[in-house]
């Protein structure tokens, strides 16, 4: 070492390689080792979580069914002007019959009918009923088809039917996203849905407003509790902490069923109120299956997620600051509002984002105590996945919800840092 330094050459490590190179290699090995430790989990999460969600969300724009089932018709319709108000010509009808006969052979026409029924009611039965008769036609021999088809069902003589077919024949569609914000894809571009079908924007608004109300009530209820936990002697605070942690550890369904027991018409709260005489027996309060029930139950369920971050921030605020302010003449309120409160804002922020993120995607509690007026957008997504089977719309709704959550997640990461999340 000493003689290389004396001769002015590069500093060498023990094995004779230059020190710089040797250190770089050590660093590289360290990085690789760290990555190797992380890799199994990262691959597991990517493959079984991130990619499935990505593919699910891609259903919100994918629309191959029409183009795959009716390939000739789609090509033939390209030359038809939907604005003209006239029916397509014979080649379109001929192409349609050829496509349909092929589709009926593999029983795909009913799926197509279901798909188009999301856009216009009546399409499902139109395809099902006509299918039985079109099956008997021979694409080669029975031409011309225009009048035959209109004879089978007069809807084939309706321009609207062909407009719907043409509009939804594209492979990548914005139709589901338009549906998700109460609009629809038409030949004339995006238009508002008819009044009676506009429910989703209302539902989004309700989800947002109720999540905000829940977050706000969590702040109001959580702040005093966090303050008193942070300012009591450690022994007492630990005992009281159990009262916060026990609900946190208790099963979600237990707490939801407890609220069902408490809030229903023959439930504990109503019974107590009637017994005390504050409420007449025949005028029991309706506290469940509405927004009130959802808000109360979810506030209770999410309150620990607000208290814990607030508490960990408040623990670090030194009591001497407030005492110093008071010694300089501040009133209790000024000392709190100008000194303590600003220092506790990071805790409020962390807790609020966490609660809001959790609230906006909630499914179980609104489903059980929400009735029809207290449900969230998640419940609508579940309905479209499992009941109406309109997966494209479910994916579009999910994509919008996920976008909101990810923006908040990003904000949370910026403000708090995901590494700083504390549990218990």
């Amino acid at each position: 070492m000493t003689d290389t330094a004396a001769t002015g050459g590069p500093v060498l490590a023990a094995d004779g390689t230059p020190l710089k190179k040797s250190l770089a290699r050590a660093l590289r090995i360290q990085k690789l080792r760290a990555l190797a430790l992380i890799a199994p989990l990262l691959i597991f999460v990517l493959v079984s979580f991130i990619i499935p969600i990505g593919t699910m969300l891609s259903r919100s724009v994918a629309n191959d069914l029409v183009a795959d089932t009716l390939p000739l018709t789609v090509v033939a319709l390209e030359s038809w002007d939907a604005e003209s108000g006239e029916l397509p010509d014979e080649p379109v009808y001929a192409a349609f019959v050829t496509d349909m006969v092929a589709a009926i052979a593999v029983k795909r026409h009913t799926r197509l009918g279901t798909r188009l029924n999301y856009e216009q009611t009546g399409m499902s039965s139109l395809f099902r009923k006509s299918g039985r008769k079109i099956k008997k036609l021979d694409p080669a021999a029975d031409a011309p088809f225009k009048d035959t088809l209109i004879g089978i069902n007069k809807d084939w003589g309706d321009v609207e039917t062909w407009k719907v077919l043409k509009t939804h024949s594209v492979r990548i569609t914005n139709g589901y996203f338009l549906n998700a914000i109460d609009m629809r894809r038409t030949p004339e571009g995006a238009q508002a849905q008819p009044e009676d079908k506009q429910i989703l924007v209302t539902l989004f608004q309700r989800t947002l407003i109720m999540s905000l109300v829940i977050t706000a009530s969590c702040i109001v209820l959580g702040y005093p509790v966090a303050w008193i936990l942070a300012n009591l002697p450690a022994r007492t605070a630990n005992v009281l902490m159990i009262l916060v942690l026990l609900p946190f550890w208790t099963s979600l369904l237990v707490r939801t069923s407890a609220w069902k027991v408490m809030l229903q018409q023959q439930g504990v709260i109503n019974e107590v109120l009637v017994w005390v005489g504050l409420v007449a027996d025949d005028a029991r309060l309706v506290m469940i299956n509405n927004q009130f029930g959802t808000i109360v139950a979810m506030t209770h369920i999410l309150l620990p997620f607000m208290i814990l971050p607030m508490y960990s921030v408040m623990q670090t605020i030194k009591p001497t600051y407030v005492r110093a302010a008071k010694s300089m003449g501040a009133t209790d309120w000024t000392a709190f509002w100008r000194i303590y409160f600003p220092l506790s804002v990071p805790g409020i922020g962390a807790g609020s984002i966490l609660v809001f993120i959790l609230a906006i995607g909630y499914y179980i509690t609104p489903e059980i105590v929400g009735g029809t007026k207290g449900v969230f957008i998640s419940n609508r997504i579940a309905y479209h996945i499992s009941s109406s089977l309109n997966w494209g719309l479910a994916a579009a709704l999910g994509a919008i919800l996920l976008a909101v959550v990810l923006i908040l997640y990003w904000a949370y990461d910026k403000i708090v840092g995901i590494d700083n999340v504390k549990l218990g």
Partner: protein
Amino acid sequence: MAALTPISRKPMSMVLPVTAAAGGFFGLFLGTANGSGLLGVVLGAAIITGLAAFYIFVLKNEALAKWITIASMAVVGFLLGGIALMIVGALAGWFYHWFIYWLYEGRYRARLLPYLTPKQVLWHYGFRVICGAIFVFLITPILVVMPLSFNAQDFFTFTPEMLRLDPAGYSLKHYQDFFNNNEWQRSFKNSLIIAPIATVISVSLGTLAAIGLSQSHVPFRRAIMAVLISPMIVPLIISATGMFFFYSDIGNWLEGSLGLPKSFVGYVKVVLAHAVLGIPFVIITVTATLVGFDNSLTRAAANMGAGPVTTFFRVQMPLILPGVISGGLFAFITSFDEVVVVLFVGSAGQKTLPWQMFTGLREQISPTILAVATILVAISIMLLATVEMLRRRSERLRGMSPT
């Protein structure tokens, strides 16, 4: 601080009105329950003020006053509504005795700073009452479930027999139903199969990754962390639908190409799905434990000839074990408590306890749910106690806390 503030007896002009207000408040409830709220307020205020005056001016013996109040209020309660109200009455009697002397002797000042103004003292106690109410809000729903689960009727509310503390009003029949009903037993068994396996997977992979993440030079650390935490953040319904499509493909492949039995594939799907959901909790708790980990210990071990594996199991693991276990408990409770994903990914053969409860709550609501809920609360109390113990042990080991 307790000895700092000298306490002195308070004037009657303060004690009597306050006790009257407190008595009136209690009287309001009794009054409305028995017909007339106003009468209740007046009577309550009069009785409590009378008691206070009697104790202070005539009796002058605190211990005797205590027993007189408890006994008389218990008797009144018993006459009004049986044994349950007798207990309420005795408690109220104890409270009012304590309250009268607390005010009269000025004991409420004893533990406060001497220079506080009356308004500040009022706020101090008012604030505590508010916090107490919030704690009651937090804990009541969980406590209410427990006695109701012993209901002899199929009701979700307290029956008159229960309120009279009549043994006939209580029974273990909902517990018997839980232990004898095949559906409940099968779902309980399924939960006990799925949750531990999912926990083992998320703990083993999660701990390795957490150790990797806490090394000093990790490329893309933030991005990796964000990906690994995301199962906790993404709304469950979105995770569930994504996994629904993914695992139905995987399941078809496992059954079709590999010819595995259907129920086995079903369990594999749910276990893997739950393992992903538990990972963020393991990552968070283990990385938190590793923050305080002294890396010179591993270097010392290596110095003395231990290989990486030996170092891990003999040096690192014992020190981070509390974090690993509490992460594992979080992962366990996540899986044990999970409904949405199992609803979508699982089939009827993998029905878990929460799933059974969920259908029970939505469709035919049976009080057996309350018995199950009570059992689950008992389980969560045990888990909570374990986590708390581990947390304290970990803090002690790392010398972070003097206690």
